[in-house]
């Protein structure tokens, strides 16, 4: 069975059970449970890193692990730890189930990146979706939370149905759901006779996946959920699960259907272009920061899709780098949103922030600048790698569209800076001192500049896992 290759996941499962027991014995001791969770994650991380270069197939061909998948694990771990740090200051009174859901969603994501069978993929996808529901709806008494949770639940189930149909059709066509077997069959037999069937399958699978990464037009849940859910959870949603979404796309499209990229490239190209434009244009008009970042996360997914279209090794590395750097940016921004307060996330609430809390304003400015993609920040390097891989594979139009979008997005990101530095506050209220939120902010800033100024090392590591 080769069980040891999933040792990190097993450790995490035990931690999850432990968290539930502790919660039962001594309820609502957030920091204690959180610390236990972090320890569990660190232990899992340790084993993950110690097996970093070991590749293997296990669980009767259901999972296939390689260094590249473990690279994704790293992004998930970072997201989870940052979320726990945020939660210490953000939540006053929640049940310890929060950490349980956090761990299970982490397991879901890790398994997603490692599944080598479509059914395994589906199971992990559902594990992830249900755990995320627990995270989104944790503050059940708060305004909009129920709405956000419900919307996510219904739409996630709906898109999963598409994905499931896609899997069934795949089985009908290939008599297998194993991704590498599909790939082999496609290489051997070609497309004759099965092309329409494959196209239908791919469209169905794509709908399911596009929902996860919030690509247009399957993005509708994003703004509502982002506005309703607690800020730390939103940050987590845009980092981990999104990276997991890209991991599956890489699996299904790039390994499963690698033999014939022409049949899926069209779809992904449409998605990329529409996602970039729609996300950025819609963000222009929003005046709520959380909603704006929801549209911005859509736009960022569009940029990553550009990398997927250019099927080459550099694109793979670019995607991982992008998600890594985006994780820090989005957590940094949401750490500050958490400090100012969820219910004060309109642009007007940020007016004059440079005077009331100059440090926060400056940090927020850095996060916005990084998201815009201005050099010396990681946002620039990640965009650069993505568009470079597209340019090298002669997708010049995608690069040009990317640039137009970069210019559009600068407007709304830097508008935040304008508000903080050039507007007068309506009412001045001091922002309390939150040690954990601040620590996340500092971590984010340090990594944004580290990845922005010295990307070489990290990029080399990513490339070495390919």
């Amino acid at each position, binding site marked *: 069975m080769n069980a040891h290759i999933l040792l990190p996941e097993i450790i995490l499962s035990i931690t999850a059970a432990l968290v539930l027991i502790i919660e039962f014995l001594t309820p609502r001791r957030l920091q204690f449970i959180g610390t236990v969770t972090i320890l569990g994650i660190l232990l899992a991380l340790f084993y993950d890193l110690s097996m970093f270069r070991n590749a293997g197939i296990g669980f009767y061909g259901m999972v296939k692990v390689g260094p590249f998948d473990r690279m994704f694990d790293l992004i998930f771990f970072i997201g989870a730890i940052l979320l726990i740090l945020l939660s210490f200051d953000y939540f006053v009174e929640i049940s310890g189930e929060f950490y349980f859901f956090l761990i299970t969603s982490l397991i879901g994501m890790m398994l997603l990146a490692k599944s080598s069978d479509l059914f395994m993929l589906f199971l992990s996808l559902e594990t992830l979706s249900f755990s995320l529901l627990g995270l989104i709806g944790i503050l059940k008494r708060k305004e909009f939370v129920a709405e956000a949770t419900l919307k996510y639940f219904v739409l996630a189930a709906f898109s999963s149905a598409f994905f499931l149909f896609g899997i069934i059709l795949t089985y009908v066509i290939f008599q297998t759901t194993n991704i590498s077997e599909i790939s082999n069959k496609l290489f051997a037999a070609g497309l004759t006779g099965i092309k329409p069937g494959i196209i239908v399958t791919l469209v169905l699978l794509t709908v399911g996946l596009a929902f996860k990464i919030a690509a247009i037009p399957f993005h509708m849940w994003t703004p509502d959920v982002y506005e309703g859910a607690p800020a730390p959870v939103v940050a987590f949603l845009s980092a981990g699960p999104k990276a997991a979404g890209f991991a599956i796309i890489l699996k299904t499209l790039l390994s499963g259907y690698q033999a014939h990229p022409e049949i899926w490239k069209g779809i992904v190209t449409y998605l990329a272009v529409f996602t970039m434009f729609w996300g950025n244009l819609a963000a222009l008009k929003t005046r709520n920061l959380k909603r704006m970042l929801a549209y911005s996360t859509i736009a960022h997914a569009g940029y990553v899709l550009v990398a997927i279209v250019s099927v080459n090794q550099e694109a793979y590395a670019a995607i991982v780098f992008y998600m890594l750097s985006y994780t820090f940016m989005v957590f940094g921004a949401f750490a500050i949103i958490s400090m100012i307060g969820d219910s004060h996330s309109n642009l007007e609430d940020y007016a004059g922030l440079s005077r009331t809390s100059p440090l926060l304003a400056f940090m927020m400015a850095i996060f916005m600048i990084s998201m815009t993609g201005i050099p010396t920040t990681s946002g620039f390097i990640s965009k650069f790698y993505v568009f470079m891989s597209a340019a090298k594979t002669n997708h010049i139009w995608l690069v040009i569209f990317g640039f137009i979008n970069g210019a559009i997005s600068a407007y709304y990101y830097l508008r935040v800076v304008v508000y903080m530095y050039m507007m*007068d506050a309506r009412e001045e209220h001091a922002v309390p001192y939150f040690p954990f939120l601040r620590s996340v902010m500092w971590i984010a800033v340090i990594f944004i500049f580290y990845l922005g100024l010295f990307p070489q090392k990290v990029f080399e590591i990513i490339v070495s896992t390919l």
Partner: protein
Amino acid sequence: MEKILVLTLFVPLVGAIINGVFGSPFKKYAHWVAVPAIGISWLGALYLLKFVLAGNTLLVNLWQWIPVKDFNVNFGLYLDPLSTVMIATVTTVSFFIHIYSIGYMHGDPGYRRYFSYLNLFVFSMLLLVLANNYVLLFVGWEAVGLCSYLLIGFWYEKKSASDAGKKAFIVNRIGDAGFILGIFTMFFTVGAVDYRTVFEAAPHLSAAVVGAITFFLFMGAMGKSAQFPLYVWLPDAMEGPTPVSALIHAATMVTAGVYMVARSSALYSAHGSVANLVAGIGAFTAILAASIALVNDDIKRVLAYSTISQLGYMFIGVGIGAYATGIFHLYTHAFFKALLFLTAGSVMHALHGELNMQKMGGLFKKMPHTGITFIIGALALSGIPPFAGFFSKDAILKEALLRGHVTIWWIGTITAFMTAFYMFRLIFMVFFGNPRDKELYEHAHESPAVMTIPLWILAIGAIVVGWVGIGEDASPFFKFLAPSLHYAEHGALIEPTVWQEWLPLAFGILGIILAWSMYMKNLPSPEGMARTFRTFYKLLKGKWYVDEIYDIFIVKPIHFLAVLLFKLVDRILIDGTVNGVAWLNRAVGSILNKIQTGAVKTYMVWIVFAATLILWLQLLK
């Protein structure tokens, strides 16, 4: 030597961080960090100048920044005569403006913030000129822009100030978008972005490619250096503190575009038509801005239009291929324009922030230091020998003539006349004649020594800095610069006749005489002139209505489009269907209706619709 270069560049950044992050307990002493930081940088720059004067250049790769297999961007600095001239000019002017700021910003609640931004600006500007590749240049380019927006909107309690900050920001985005496109065109065609590789490849590139690169880069320059049609932000930028206007919006940042074109001389001289466009835009901007300055009554706005006009001259210089003359004018202009702004600031300081020249008059007696230094600056700007501006402006016009650009020469000469006129109109209105507002006049006083000493130093600069360029190509300044610049092939030179050589000077003197007779002797009276040329006067007073034209043809349509798009997509398509489905729900009374969010169902309908559409498109292929 590398260490000195790194020190020169980074000390201002350290100053900015100390004041910005740790300085809050020592608010009032922010200048004790900021001024020494620039001082060290200044000394470093002078030391480097000595080093480069000895014929050395220096290329320092601090680290590999963006490494990809066959493409590499280094975090590298390049010290050659051109960048040395720039860092020497920038640090010298910055140093004195920092000192002046101690007096000018005294007691301002944002004192620490101000010095932190100012230090950060100097760092960014040095990075811009020292970069050895276009990406790093762009970093500096964006960073100086950022500091500029922050400092324009420094007094953000004033709505006009924050509006001006936003305007500068938006207008510059247009130019910067072009600049990025330029870098990417370079990247796609040459495969490199560092100066050396790009310039070596330039002669082998097709005309279309070089044309595209240079055009896009020039778009960036038009934004940053306030050239037509993107000049509209600079007059409004005067809402910032006056030392900022002097440093950023006159002496240094706005000249970044000129520097960039001169730096890219290998590219610009490889393609004639874009270079001609640069010169043409420069000439047009020079005369357009000068004409607006003729009738403006705001002391800082007059100087702002004059800056735009002088930048136009510099672009004439670099556009016609006489790169050294453009840089020479940049260098002299930095001194006398900084001086003019600081003296204007001194006047404002004395009059409690009053900017309207119609309320001033007779101030010379009250503030002699400010008055004399202002006149020195004005003489330099008007191109009267032996002041600095004479040599540099003359060099540009002479080169224009030599290379056969007679129209441009005429425009430049007429602009010289206008320049002298509006500068001396300002002097006669502000410093001479009878006080127009008695109360303001009574309270006027000379500024403290911390402000007047920098004025005098810059005034001396405004007199002498031009001397190093006497004799043009044979002069030390031009010889020094020559290795950094690439010259285009040009046809036979046309030697100017004697009257052509002296006409700009004659026009300048005529301008001064006319201003004197109109504003001192009332002959012809300004009011009479305004009445006689009523339509023209109104056009000038309205600044050719360029802002209004932009508003009608650009701002309003874009705003309309954005609102339309928002309404169409969000309101009608999404909300509309939401409402429609909600209505349907009520009618059918389904179970989901109890959830009360009609939206979820609409979203599902959308998903199905989109999936079908994609499927249809795919199968159709």
